[in-house]
């Protein structure tokens, strides 16, 4: 059925391909993808963007965005993105990484890309577990949270404490824009969209490294309904990972989006 243009209120962003995603029902990867696609549309940069997909649930992100894409080894997306950006400084280069990818195996790459102030944008999905491999404990798993590799709940005495990435990276001089948002309700999704736009604008203007951490759901591996998993984000994730603007340099504060 064709919809008359004046009746159309919601359409697929141009930056998306026609491929349906493989994500589980209720997973917020789809929301995060859509926000990025809308921003690429708005900024009219689809034909000059190169995405870097991670290893994890979003390993197939390259199937969904209608831009050039490469697929990085686990955790190495910021290094690959650095290589691309250094030879193509006038392109938009972004990585899309989960918490196992970014905060565990790729900790070295992300910290140094941020410290160097690489003009990259990183979209960091924090859903407190390794989704693709079936819900193992991640560096971001909450204390006491049960996963397939912390069956009695994460014991901080033996398994350590969660890592707050946005907070950590915001201490680095090279970082221009570093914020944390959540995808658990429409208001927060709108704020997330604005942050993603600002992050890409930061890169476009050469104002340093930009990252948006997005608190996300994993209903399948958390063993919850989609609605309950959104509640879990609000009630448990947000208190453990406070939302906020951890670093916005002055020139970036002037950007109106």
């Amino acid at each position, binding site marked *: 059925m064709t919809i008359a243009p004046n009746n159309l209120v919601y359409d697929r962003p141009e930056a998306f391909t026609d491929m349906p995603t493989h994500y589980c029902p209720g997973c917020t990867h789809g929301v995060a993808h859509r926000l990025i696609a809308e921003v690429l549309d708005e900024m009219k940069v689809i034909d000059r*963007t190169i995405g870097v997909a991670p290893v994890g649930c979003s390993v197939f992100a390259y199937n969904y965005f209608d*831009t050039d894409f*490469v*697929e990085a080894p686990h955790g*190495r997306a910021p290094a690959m993105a*650095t290589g*691309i*950006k250094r030879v193509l400084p006038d392109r938009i280069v972004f990585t899309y990484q989960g918490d196992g990818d970014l905060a565990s195996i790729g900790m070295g790459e992300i910290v140094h890309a941020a410290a160097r102030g690489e003009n990259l944008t990183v979209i960091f999905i924090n859903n407190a577990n390794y989704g693709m491999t079936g819900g193992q404990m991640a560096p971001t798993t909450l204390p006491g949270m049960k996963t397939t590799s912390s069956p009695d709940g994460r014991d901080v005495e033996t398994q350590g404490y969660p890592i707050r990435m946005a907070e950590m990276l915001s201490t680095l001089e090279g970082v221009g824009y570093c914020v944390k948002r959540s995808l658990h309700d429409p208001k927060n999704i709108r704020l997330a969209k604005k942050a993603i736009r600002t992050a890409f604008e930061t890169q476009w203007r050469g104002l340093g490294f930009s990252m948006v951490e997005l608190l996300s759901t994993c209903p399948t591996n958390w063993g919850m309904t989609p609605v309950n998993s959104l509640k879990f984000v609000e009630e448990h994730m947000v208190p453990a990972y406070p939302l906020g603007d951890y670093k916005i340099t002055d020139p970036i504060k002037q950007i109106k989006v």
Partner: protein
Amino acid sequence: MSRELWKGNEAIAEAAVRAGLEAYFGYPITPQTEILEYLSRRMPKLGRAFLQAESELGAINMVYGAACTGARVMSSSSSPGVSLMMEGLSYIAGTEVPAVLVNVMRGGPGLGNIAPAQGDYNQAVHGGGHGDYPRIVLAPASVQEAIDLMALSFDLAEKYRMITMLILDGSVGQMMEPAEMPEMRSPNRKKFDWATDGALNRDRRVLSSIYLDPLAEEQTNFRLMQRWKEVMANEVRYKEYFLEDAEIVIVGFGTAGRVSLSAVRAARERGIKVGLLRPVTVSPFPYEVLDRLTGQARTFLVVEMNTGQMLEDVRLAVRGRVPVAFYGRTGGVVPFPDEILDEIQRINTEPVSAEADPRQSWLDRMTAIKA
């Protein structure tokens, strides 16, 4: 261009610049650090990308990213650092993008030492990263040859969309020799029909090493092997010395080959009919010429700075038709010409048994000397 005194590592760096290197990513490790240092001075002045990465993992993945755009890109490292890069090499191979990696080999395994060695032959030629993938491996024996092979390595990598490795031991990296640099080639990024450089006025492209369907991965592996067949047919390179009438044929690559040549000359002065085959491409390996030499030689002597890695490839070529002997120094020890001359003289007077395991016989002799 006139001949100038060049240090191996710096010569490699300058030769890469002149071959149109657009981006270098590396990490300090002895004995290759001068490549990194030289390019840190040279590349920014030319407006080209230079970056000291946080690790070899970072460096090889930066290479991977830049390679995906079609830029001429390289890294360099030494043995332990190259081990760290194996993950990236496998991905680069699986994605079929061109990249050049220089390994200035040192003594190992483990942290080993910083003295010259050839212990990474198997890693470079036969293995390293996971999965099935071929790669081109060049082994220079002098500063001049390293310079000459640098430009070739980029051309080969791009022609076959394949990793090209340059393996040299620490002595070639560290020594100074008179050498001639080629003319400066301006970087001229080719418009590859696979490069992910932004989908401006074209359909988007994806570069990945994922083939989730095993049948598609199998087809990919077939494709890589078919391409390798072309490399084997067209790109084998080697040097022959005194082989016309040689009854004893020494096979050695890089510095081991170069030291062997001195021994061959000394043996010739003593009237021994000995020659040298020095593979320049250790991958593709010169099986054909070895097959031909098997019809002529009564004995082969493989000389390496490891415990007999290329030895296995020589044995594969010779297929037991004539005896193969081995002499090696390892752990960072470089053989003297006299040692190799002694081996030649021994082989010349006492026939080598075709049944003996060449590595075991060598090891028995070496440990007996020590005891």
